């Protein structure tokens, strides 16, 4: 938007005024205001949906607030002491760690492998690339129910297959063993994370200098050496971002775990997100749920800090 310089005809001092509507701060201030205006919707949403509930949860973490105590009652560090002395809640931290490591490692390994395959020239590559995104596009709850039916003890596809192959005599309740349930939730998460991770790696591979690889091949490098000495070093920045995003995403993950196992059997898949939900909405112990939630946020912060630092450094 252009502004005309007006001549008021009242001498040199008056001629310096750019407009009768000019305001303090000039153009910069106007642009800042536009910035604030654009920022306002996101800022309002952030404050209302994230900041205020978070600050409220922060306060509630130091209170007793359950069905017996309808009005929050300050108990200091009581909830945190209870967490430290509760094998069940401490177990949730271990379960979360196992889930995050397995789901992130599985997604990175399979995502990278699939990206390497889809980076090769072959007929139908574009169609396969597009189809690879289907698991990512499907709603996660649908994915959970699909895998739930695969693992179902009475009507599941897996049991039908293994029984017909003679591997098992009776249907197995996969989701009723600790190992089976954890495997199921990891497989489900990996299945719909691979397309996203693959996309990141594929983008990274597109910028790899092919002449460099050809030169290495001429020098006698085999596939593994190419991967180790050329491809992986090239993908290192992408790898870092993918791993950090994977860790954050898996630490926060809730929906497919809840839909598949509900945190069970017993507490085998009760990761922190499930633990907070169960404390808050099954047992109505909002104070304890807030305290566990606070510690849950603390586990996410290092990864988030690392990611933001990397992002800002890049910028």
């Amino acid at each position, binding site marked *: *938007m252009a502004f005309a310089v007006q001549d008021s005809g009242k001498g040199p001092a008056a001629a310096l005024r750019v407009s009768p*509507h000019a*305001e303090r701060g000039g*153009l910069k*201030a*106007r*642009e800042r*205001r*536009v910035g*604030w*205006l654009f920022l*306002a919707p996101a800022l*309002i949403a952030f404050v209302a949906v994230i900041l205020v509930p978070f600050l409220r949860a922060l306060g509630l973490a130091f209170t007793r607030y*359950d*069905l*017996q*105590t*309808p009005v929050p009652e300050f108990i200091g560090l009581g909830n945190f002491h209870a967490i430290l002395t509760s094998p069940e809640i401490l177990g949730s931290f271990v379960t979360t760690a196992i889930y995050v490591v397995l789901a992130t490692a599985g997604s990175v390994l399979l995502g990278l492998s699939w990206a390497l395959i889809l980076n090769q020239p072959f007929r139908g590559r574009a169609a396969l690339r597009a189809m690879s995104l289907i698991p990512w596009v499907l709603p996660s709850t649908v994915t959970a129910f699909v895998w739930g039916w695969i693992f*179902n*003890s*009475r009507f599941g596809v897996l049991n039908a297959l293994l029984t017909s192959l003679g591997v098992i005599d*009776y249907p197995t*309740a996969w*989701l*009723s*063993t*600790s190992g089976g349930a954890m495997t199921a939730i990891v497989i489900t998460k990996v299945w719909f994370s691979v397309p996203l991770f693959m996309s990141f790696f594929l983008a990274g591979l597109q910028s790899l200098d092919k002449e460099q690889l050809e030169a290495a091949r001429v020098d006698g490098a085999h596939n593994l050496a190419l991967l180790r000495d050329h491809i992986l070093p090239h993908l290192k920045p992408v790898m870092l971002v993918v791993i950090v995003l994977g860790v954050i995403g898996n630490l926060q993950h809730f929906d497919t775990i809840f839909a598949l196992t509900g945190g*069970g*059997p*017993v*507490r085998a898949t009760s990761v922190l997100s499930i633990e907070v939900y*169960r404390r808050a*909405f*099954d*047992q*109505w*112990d909002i104070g304890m749920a807030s305290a566990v939630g606070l510690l849950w946020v603390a586990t996410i912060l290092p990864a988030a800090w690392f990611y933001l630092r990397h992002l800002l450094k890049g910028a």
Partner: protein
Amino acid sequence: MSISRRSFNLMMASGATAAMMARPGLAAATDVSFLSFTYAEDPNRPHVQALLDGFKAKSGIAVEPIGSAWGDVQKNVLLRERSRTLPTTAQLSERWLPAMSKLPEVVNLDDAIGRDVLEAAIDPKVLAMGQAGGKTLALPLITGSIGMVANKEVLEKAGVGAPPETLDDFRKVLVAIRDKVPNSVPFAAATKNPNSIPLDFMIMVWAHGGRIITEEGKVVVNSDAAKAALGLMTDFMKDRLIAPELDRPDSRRLFAQGASGFYFDAPQALSFARTLSGRGNQADGMVLPMKTPVLKAGDTAHSIQWGHLVIAFKGAATDGKDAAGIEWLKYLMSDEVQLSFPPSLSALPVTKTAVASPKVQNDPFFKAWANATGVPLTNEVGVWGNAPELSTIISEEVQASLLGQKKPDAAIGSMAERLEASMAKGG
């Protein structure tokens, strides 16, 4: 692009005004709503709709139904309480009342309807289901007990003539069903949902002569009887006589489709069998109410007191004895409702006149149910304010034993410790 301070201030003010105006509007003062899990069940929705239509025809007041799945009702009510969007009335399972009674918005029906009116209409034992802390905080709507039902057709397929009386006989019958009825779950006990597992476990503990928590709040589950009960259930799992991953709806489906010989349920088992079998009234002969098998012949068999309640929340629609919401509750106590609604769900009515009516007294299923279940006992877990936590603890420890993660004795020991801690915190 830039913008003047005046325009900026104007936009911000407009935005704030719009945001304030966009707040959810408060419901009209006389609106009556009814949050109901029966309304959310497809086969039973017409029965609730008939109640709503009947009340409208009689009083001219429309009641807005709000469907909510059975497992989500407590969540729904408590979240609505926090967001100040409580319905006028809500349907509860009797075991949820201790937790719900803590809400300050609950209407005391002794004042709203009158204790004398309630006691004149409803037997004190039934009315007690809706009482907490000496006050009547919920109106019983339907009643009955949770006991064992046998599938007569499955028993016949397994070559069993009559339901077993003792636990030893019970096991033999279960083995026969497993071996002679392919792909069946002989005893469809609840093994998945924390809301259902404690009920099955409780009846099995009673059958062994034990208890979980006394009326005084003392945890007494760490007993030989409870260990034997859990040991038996664990053996059933090992022998494939019960199955993992089963919740009550799964049990009802298996039973109705001839894939299960026994399970625990309320008298509603009959209406579920009719609907889920697809055979309607022709399925009636399949459902056989029976006494829960006991340790030795002659022991007393037990069932759990069960019922549905209706609770009212304070508001314009419940303010005063003639308020629309209170009129709705009074209508639910009328013979018109009590002689039609409970029987349509295969449950017993709550009012004295309806119970004494020939329609109920001469109903063969109700007679059989009453003979089989006798005098039901109070739910030992559900009566406490921290029932949700107690149920979770019992459920986790029972599951741990059933799935082989803990020995039954260790699971009972751990259950007792955790229950004691929970009761000490706020039972």
